[in-house]
């Protein structure tokens, strides 16, 4: 199993029946493939609808029906289209149970950086800043390190997306949650030791007394 699949499978366990969620592109969207049977999750797309899914047949193709990544999609029965101000009202208003996004850096204060690397072409902000401020729970799904560079830091070093908003970090090696303002190691991947996690993590964290092994 590759890192992306490990992370996506673990993210999928966070979804509860009835959740409204907004997922970033990449690993967060991949997680929908692993949602357990019986758990119904409604996906919100910031361009203006919820309850969408992939095309199921040729007749589904409609150029006016895309998701926020620009892919053609189907908004299923029970779903609804709305304009951009309503879409972001839903986001900022706290109506989304979860958002899952990737990050370049996260730190022990719950700060997150995922939009800008100084000196490089900036793709932009899109809806990311609104999502992490508005959603009830912010889950960061990312590889633990980037080409050997640590990503879970004491303090982010690149421009922030938001301050103090991260609730949970899921990597291929560990699961952290933020409790009482600090990071707590909740789970490790089978065979990975706490010492290894410390070597790969700059941030300070405590180890949960009921530390578990990731079950994926």
């Amino acid at each position, binding site marked *: 199993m590759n890192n992306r699949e490990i992370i996506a499978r673990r993210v999928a366990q966070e979804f509860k029946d009835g959740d409204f969620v907004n997922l970033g592109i990449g690993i967060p969207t991949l997680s929908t493939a692993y949602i357990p049977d019986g758990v119904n999750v409604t996906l919100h*797309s*910031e*361009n*203006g*609808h919820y309850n969408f899914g992939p095309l199921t047949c040729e007749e589904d193709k*409609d*150029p*006016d*029906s*895309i998701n*926020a990544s*620009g892919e053609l999609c189907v*908004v299923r029965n029970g779903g609804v*289209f*709305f*304009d*951009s*101000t309503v*879409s*972001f009202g839903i*986001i*900022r208003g706290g109506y989304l149970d979860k958002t899952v996004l990737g990050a370049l850096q996260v730190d022990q204060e719950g*700060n997150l950086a995922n939009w*800008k690397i100084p000196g490089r*072409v*900036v*793709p*932009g*902000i*899109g*809806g*990311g*800043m*609104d999502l992490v*401020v*508005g959603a009830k729970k912010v889950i960061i799904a990312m590889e633990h390190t980037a080409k050997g560079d640590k990503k879970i830091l004491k303090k982010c070093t690149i*421009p*922030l*997306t*938001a*301050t*103090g908003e991260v609730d949970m970090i899921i990597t291929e090696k560990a699961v952290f949650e933020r409790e009482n303002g600090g990071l707590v190691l909740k789970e490790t991947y089978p065979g990975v030791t706490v010492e290894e996690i410390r070597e790969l993590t700059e941030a300070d964290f405590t180890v949960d007394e009921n530390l578990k092994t990731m079950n994926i």
Partner: protein
Amino acid sequence: MAKIISIKEAMDMIQDGMSIMIAGFLAVGTPEILVDALVEKNTKNHTLIAISTAYPNKGSGKLVVNKQIKKAIVSHIGTNPEAGRQYINNEMEIEFVPQGTLVERIRCGGFGMGGFLTPTGVGTEIEEGKQRISVDGKDYLLEKHLRADIAFIRAHKADKNGNLTYRKAARNSNMVMATAADITFVVADEIVEVGDLDQDEIMTPGIFVDYLVQG
């Protein structure tokens, strides 16, 4: 209320330097025939207000590729490499705005409000130069209203009074941008008689619409 005009008549009203709202999300909901006509007219130094710079060959991105945009107020340029190139080479100024903030600033511009308070961007670069205001113990940024000289809107159906409906995800920024420009141009998939639209179904009242442009 709304007057039906040709594309040429619409283009005759557009001059160099005007600010332009172009509705659409990744070009879905963008009236391409107006963008194409403006590329042909080749006016310069426009300020573009849009959710993104779309694609090099689709939506608002075509104006970027044709070097007609001096400044873009957008949330995203990642799907248009030419926008990134012009930005890095200082050929085009970009004001990055979080998408929810962008559309709400436009709503303020359309609806007579000076701005609004949002928690989005507090403690980030977005805060630079803005007032932080605390309300009931929570911090917000004051984000100011945004209007444009003209707006390009794509509707599904328009009646001859300018009442509009939209279809599926093509609604996106169309509804709000239709309210916030001095001159609003609409291209509809279909123009129908007054009375043909169910009054409960109308999404944009015709009072906001100046011209229906026939392609």
